[in-house]
């Protein structure tokens, strides 16, 4: 796997999940998340079963749960909100370990927590098994407007260039005794953010010029991406359809 595919969320592998065309995986992940979101919040068992579906996907893709858990931590700020809700929501309350908790708040908190967690896990699973460039070409195959794909491509490429530039600027400030621990020294940091913006803007113009010089007319050339057979689709959609059926069962049973 070349370094070009490396991003912190990607985990190189050669499983069935890794080999699926990116656009198929994007659709599956999207449908799966929709199903999770549509599940009624009282249908506790359904969420458990949906989680088991994900565990199945991880087993096939050979992604260790610990690896996923570490990357799912991005959700932490939302968890805080979910935990606070039972304390501050109004309505009927229950006593639990000496605390008075709002029932509605408990359910709302649980709703955020479980759907957020499952959503993050689905996204991390997609990212773990799909290199960035495939994600972008997958999106363009799904007819996402080409301008959006171009922007995504350029962002992926230049984020690191700009970050490196920011690091060099910081180093140059620190080397001249700048110590941004003190509030009154924040000014220099703020000004270098401005300088960085201008530099990035100028770089943008140079990149555009270089693109024009190689015949860019506003549309990216369509690079061929692997298409997916009906068989591939039907296998790949199994977890998504299962999650959707579970969500529906949530309405009947609860």
């Amino acid at each position: 796997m070349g370094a070009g595919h490396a991003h912190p969320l990607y985990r190189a592998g050669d499983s069935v999940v890794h080999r699926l065309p990116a656009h198929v995986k994007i659709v599956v992940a999207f449908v799966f998340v929709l199903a999770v979101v549509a599940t009624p919040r009282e249908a506790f068992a359904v969420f458990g079963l949906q989680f088991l579906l994900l565990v199945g996907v991880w087993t096939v893709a050979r992604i260790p749960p610990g690896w996923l858990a570490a990357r799912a931590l991005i959700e932490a700020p939302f968890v805080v909100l979910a935990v606070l809700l039972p304390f501050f929501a109004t309505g009927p309350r229950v006593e639990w370990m000496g605390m008075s908790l709002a029932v509605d708040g408990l359910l709302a908190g649980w709703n955020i927590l479980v759907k957020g967690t499952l959503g993050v896990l689905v996204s991390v699973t997609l990212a773990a098994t799909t290199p960035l460039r495939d994600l972008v070409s997958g999106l363009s195959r799904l007819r996402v407007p080409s301008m959006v794909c171009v922007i995504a491509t350029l962002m992926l490429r230049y984020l690191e260039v700009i970050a490196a530039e920011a690091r060099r600027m910081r180093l140059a400030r620190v080397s001249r005794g700048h110590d941004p621990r003190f509030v009154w020294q924040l000014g220099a940091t703020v000004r270098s953010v401005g300088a960085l913006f201008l530099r990035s803007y100028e770089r943008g113009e140079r990149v555009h010029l270089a693109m024009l010089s190689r015949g860019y007319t506003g549309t990216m050339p369509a690079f061929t991406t692997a298409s997916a057979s009906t068989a591939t689709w039907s296998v790949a959609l199994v977890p998504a359809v299962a999650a959707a059926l579970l969500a529906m069962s949530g309405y009947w049973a609860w």
Partner: protein
Amino acid sequence: MTVPSLEVSGLAFAYPDGHQALFGVDLRIERGERVALLGPNGAGKTTLVLHLNGVHRAGAGTVRVGGMEVTREHVQEIRRRVGIVFQDPDDQLFMPTVADDVAFGPANFGVTEPELALRVKEALEAVGVAELADRSPMHLSGGQRRRAALATVLACDPEILVLDEPSTHLDPVARRELAEVLLGLDRTMLMVTHDLPYALQLCPRSVVIDGGVVVADAPTRDLLADADFLRAHRLELPFGFALD
């Protein structure tokens, strides 16, 4: 008489803010020639280069590439014929992988698979970085990036290769390796540079531009041996170099 790769005659240009950058430039480069374009900062070198592929339109005079005049109708074909390698490879390499980047130009010019893959392979081999095809430009060394940027232009099969400061930010080994690649290409070349020894190594002929006009057009060695002339146009050989 054969058609020259590049023919610039009476080219004048002023920026929209009124700053006149070129005052009647004449330049003719025959097919297969390697020419250095020298001159101090602000002399109009970059402005001239951006006229060659129609980014700037001539205020007066004409530019012809392989016999075709640079006009609005021909701009796409002109851009295929003029391959500009920009100074900072990070500006040129914008795709996720080197191979995608090399394919970008020819794909824009209508080359399709399977020829596209062949073009990419040939261009990468010509600059000696075939093994980097699937790498991200982010993780390449300066020399590798420079050669990858060169490959992105070679893949378009240009009539004339225009290099903007090809030796900047290269360590001595990468600089020499790039020179070897360039000498092995056998293409018409216009090299904009401040690196006079590099010009001497690569280009038998040099054109000096200063104040928006061509002030000299002569064998590189003769030009660089004329200390008075160099001084008059803010050109200077590095410390320790002398030609006689």
